[in-house]
């Protein structure tokens, strides 16, 4: 064989100039060892391609897709969120109510809830894991586009507890601070991510939050102050 192995590999990889490539092709017609070497390299490429190709056909997981999904997701100010909530409430109000009738909106264990993020305590749902961390520390005014849990509005409810609406891949809802944990007052299947259902879910949460508020939602400063004070409810 008159070509060194790296050159044969380069030929199979399409890295040679046309002239050299043609020389190899011609030589392979009469050089059985060279022809066999080319076949060996092509077989390896084919085998690798065949092995990895199915990954490209898999559906892309929602947790990756949602990072790049349409819609506002980065540093939306609380004022914007409130405006969005108001407009959603007015335009989606009926749709949301209709959807909630279909979905049901009660407290209880749901199969879609990611196991690590929720615990039960005497029948009540309590945020755990990354959800609890997000509710505890994440600011709506300063959350990254890639955050798994997105905080919506924060507010004081009529009982004086701090509550926060959130959206996450498996679960949307409203958590209220009680003692040292976040009790989930409203839960909806998250994830949906698309179309009418998602909008109904956002509208539903906004409507539920609005109904629970004692006064206006916290602004960015109020949110930060409440967090820094450990979400201790004021008497």
């Amino acid at each position, binding site marked *: 064989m008159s070509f060194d192995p790296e050159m044969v*590999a380069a030929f199979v990889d399409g890295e040679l100039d046309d002239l050299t490539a043609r020389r190899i092709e011609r030589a392979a017609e009469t050089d059985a060892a060279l022809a066999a070497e080319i076949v060996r390299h092509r077989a390896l490429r084919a085998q690798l*391609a065949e092995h*990895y190709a199915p990954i*490209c056909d898999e559906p892309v997981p929602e*947790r*990756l897709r949602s990072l790049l999904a349409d819609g506002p997701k980065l540093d939306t100010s609380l004022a914007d969120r409130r405006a969005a909530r108001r407009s959603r409430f007015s335009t989606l109000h009926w749709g949301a109510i209709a959807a909630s009738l279909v979905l049901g909106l009660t407290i209880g264990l749901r199969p879609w809830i990611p196991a690590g993020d929720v615990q039960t305590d005497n029948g009540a749902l309590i945020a755990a894991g990354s959800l609890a961390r997000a509710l505890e520390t994440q600011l709506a005014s300063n959350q990254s*586009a890639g955050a798994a849990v997105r905080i919506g509005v924060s507010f004081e409810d009529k009982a004086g507890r701090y509550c926060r609406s959130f959206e996450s891949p498996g679960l949307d809802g409203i958590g209220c601070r009680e003692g040292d944990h976040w009790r989930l007052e409203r839960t909806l299947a998250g994830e949906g991510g698309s179309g009418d259902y998602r909008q109904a879910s956002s509208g539903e949460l906004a409507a539920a939050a609005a109904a629970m508020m004692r006064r206006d939602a916290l602004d960015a400063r109020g949110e930060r102050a409440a967090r820094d004070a450990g979400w201790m409810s004021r008497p």
Partner: protein
Amino acid sequence: MRFEEELVELLPRLRRFARGLARDASDADDLCQAAIERALKSRDQWQQGTRLDSWMYRITRNLWIDERRAAGRRGVHSPIDDAVTQVAGDGAAEVEAGALRGDVGGAMARLPDEQREIVMLILVEGYAYREAAEILDVPIGTVTSRLARGRETLMFYLGEAA
């Protein structure tokens, strides 16, 4: 096309590349997620008109290398990578190679990281040598020599004719 839309289109290929690097499917998707987050954060650094795919592959690969190094410092050890050094003239390896025939994943797992990433880029993702060299930020001679060694090992484990 919007930056995000282009990234969405890239995702299936990027997942494949990440799977080749990280091997474990959920580790690979974690890697993709980190790469997307990094890309969104530093999108200003991507120059319009240059290839977004190469840029994303570079980010993904660098994150993976960082993670591997951090794991190394923590003392997490990957015994499989050491197996490669035993290939030549080792009777046990011959037997193992027989058992691996047709097991592409198993054969790839026996490549050192720096060979596996090049095999993925060139033989699976179809990048030219020069493009792979740019993604990995190494000289082209390094690419060809690592590729040759990776190929040799794969052919050894997978057999002559596929």
